[in-house]
């Protein structure tokens, strides 16, 4: 049995690694001989089989091929309908995880418990969906770990460095930035910031638009008329993007499926970098945000480490070099280090000091006696990036006379403005009648090593209290029974 297993469930590529007896992690190839598996699922119409990986990507039937499902892990309304059955993002992800589990266990032994990586900014629902996907695939999730944290663990292990590291993880679908301190085997995370929909596939889409424009200019026709052909051109743009990381100029020829002629696409690296400049500016914002969160300057960073396939883009490297005044280092194979780090994390988690992924608090009407202003705000009890485990208390007052029930909305998010946070739960506490407003209520949040959050409300006058586990149970979360039923169904499927 493989004791320490890590899985990088990526937007475009997924990988599984395990810890060898010598303490070094190793990627386990799939049954197709590939070290990484494309996160693509194809539902065959002739046979009752689900293809996962490069075979699925090349399947050619766009209506039956699912790409980048990870982007929808927090969308309860995103359902994929195939042959009348509606699949949730968690179920599609479970097919990818099943392929990894089935293929890799033939090499490294039975896989029952895993560490799975997620983007730093994955919200509660996306994290829950990831856990549900693993359970449907027959694996227990020992821990979820942020992708840049896993990459940093691998970097620290493989390079033997110490000091303050900034990990810049620009993958297929997301950007994550983590700052951490490394001293031998001890790792202390200072902050993790993430940006959604900012990765290689966004660059592919931008290039696709450039291809469309050039084709229209040269032939007067549209480059594609259906999803099948769009996919083919998209694949060509991805190849061109990769070439532009090595060459200054790339020439390509494209044709549409309507015999409108062939167009010659001439792309320079300079032009490509101009096209993606806006997206790269967003990455700079995120790096600055991480530095601000950790109260650091660029000069406080000893190493800048690159992770994720999109960090192969020369402009990304030069941009970070200019920002930090030092050459960013690569984490070995930028596509594999997250899975490798996750396997290491499975064993070393106790030596890694993590922080809260988000702020937790409640809604409160805050009265400023000085200005006499009253404003509904998100009142943070545990701020993001507080080292865990931790516990924090805030005292509030009741708002009405004869209040019989105290209600505490549980918020997740850093913004003071209540509009910009998620309300992920509510705690209610019955209190005695006939009390004036202004009675004190203590709200305590605690956050443990397994990233479980608990909320405790204590009415100070009556001594009554109530404690609950803070967990998002809104739309998109499967009940235990439903999860069990779907797991059973999925395990009987043929997945290749």
């Amino acid at each position, binding site marked *: 049995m493989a004791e320490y297993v890590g899985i990088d469930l990526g937007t475009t590529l997924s990988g599984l690694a395990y810890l060898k007896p010598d303490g070094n992690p190793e990627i386990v190839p799939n049954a197709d001989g590939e070290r990484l598996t494309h996160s693509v699922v194809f539902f065959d119409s002739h046979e009752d089989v689900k293809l996962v990986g490069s075979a699925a990507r090349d399947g050619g039937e766009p209506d039956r091929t699912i790409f980048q499902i990870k982007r929808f892990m927090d*969308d309860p*309304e995103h359902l994929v309908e195939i042959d009348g059955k509606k699949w949730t993002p968690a179920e599609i992800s479970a097919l990818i995880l099943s392929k990894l589990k089935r293929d890799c266990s033939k090499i490294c032994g039975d896989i029952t418990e895993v560490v799975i990586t997620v983007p730093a*900014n*994955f*919200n509660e629902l*996306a994290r829950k969906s990831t856990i549900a996907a693993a359970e449907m695939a027959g694996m227990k999730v020992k821990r979820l770990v942020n992708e840049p944290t896993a990459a940093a663990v691998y970097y620290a292990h493989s390079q033997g460095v110490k000091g303050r590291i900034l990990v810049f993880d620009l993958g297929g679908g997301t950007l994550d930035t983590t700052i951490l301190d490394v001293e031998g085997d001890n790792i202390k995370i200072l902050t993790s910031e993430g*940006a*959604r929909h900012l990765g290689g596939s966004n660059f592919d889409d931008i290039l696709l638009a450039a291809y469309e424009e050039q084709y229209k200019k040269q032939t007067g026709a549209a480059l594609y008329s259906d999803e099948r052909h769009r996919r083919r051109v998209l694949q060509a743009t991805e190849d061109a993007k990769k070439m532009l990381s090595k060459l200054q100029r790339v020439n390509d020829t494209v044709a549409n499926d309507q015999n409108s002629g062939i167009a010659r696409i001439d792309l320079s690296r300079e032009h490509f970098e101009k096209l993606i*400049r*806006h997206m*790269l*500016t*967003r990455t700079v*914002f*995120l790096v*600055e*945000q991480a530095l*601000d969160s950790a109260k650091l300057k660029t000069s406080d960073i000893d190493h800048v480490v690159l992770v994720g396939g999109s960090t192969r883009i020369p402009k990304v490297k030069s*941009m970070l070099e200019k920002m930090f005044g030092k050459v960013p280092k690569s984490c070995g194979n930028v596509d594999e280090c997250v899975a490798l780090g996750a396997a290491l994390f499975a064993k070393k988690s106790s030596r890694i000091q993590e922080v809260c992924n988000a702020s937790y608090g*409640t*809604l*409160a*009407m*805050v*009265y*400023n*006696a000085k200005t006499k202003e009253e*404003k*509904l705000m998100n009142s943070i009890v545990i701020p993001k990036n507080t080292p865990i485990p931790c516990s924090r208390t*805030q*005292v*509030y*007052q*009741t*708002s*009405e006379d004869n209040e019989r*029930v105290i*209600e*505490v*909305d549980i918020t997740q*998010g*850093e*913004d003071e*403005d*209540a*509009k*910009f946070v*998620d*309300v*992920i*739960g*509510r*705690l*209610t506490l019955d209190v005695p009648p006939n009390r004036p407003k202004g009675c004190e209520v203590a*709200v305590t949040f605690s956050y443990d090593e397994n990233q479980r959050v608990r909320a405790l409300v204590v009415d100070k006058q009556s001594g009554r209290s109530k404690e*609950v586990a803070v967990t*998002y*149970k*809104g*739309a998109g979360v499967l009940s235990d029974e439903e999860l069990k039923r779907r797991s059973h169904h999925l395990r009987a499927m043929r997945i290749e």
Partner: protein
Amino acid sequence: MFKILKSLSKSLGGGKPAAEAPPPSKAKAGSLLDKVNKGAPAAAKVEPTQSPEELCGITPKMAKDEIKAQLKLLFRRYNRSASSLDAKLRGEADQMLDAIVQMREKHFGEI
């Protein structure tokens, strides 16, 4: 400074407490949050016809430091909103992030 507990359901004047676990994911239309946000800067409400300056609340009189601080605040806010459980807010976020980037490039140059 007093902090008075104010749950959404009480703000809406609901009598009975909501069920313990399943929460509202966002404020309903016409809720206290909406009333509060009427007084918020233009940046909080995304209208398709607004210029990047208007969306970001950048005025000609603002000093560079103020612009920088404003853009950083807005980036943090809308980058987080891009992962919100509220689909409407997620939709607004991308438009705002584009405007924030345009403002940065205009006032501080391209990367």
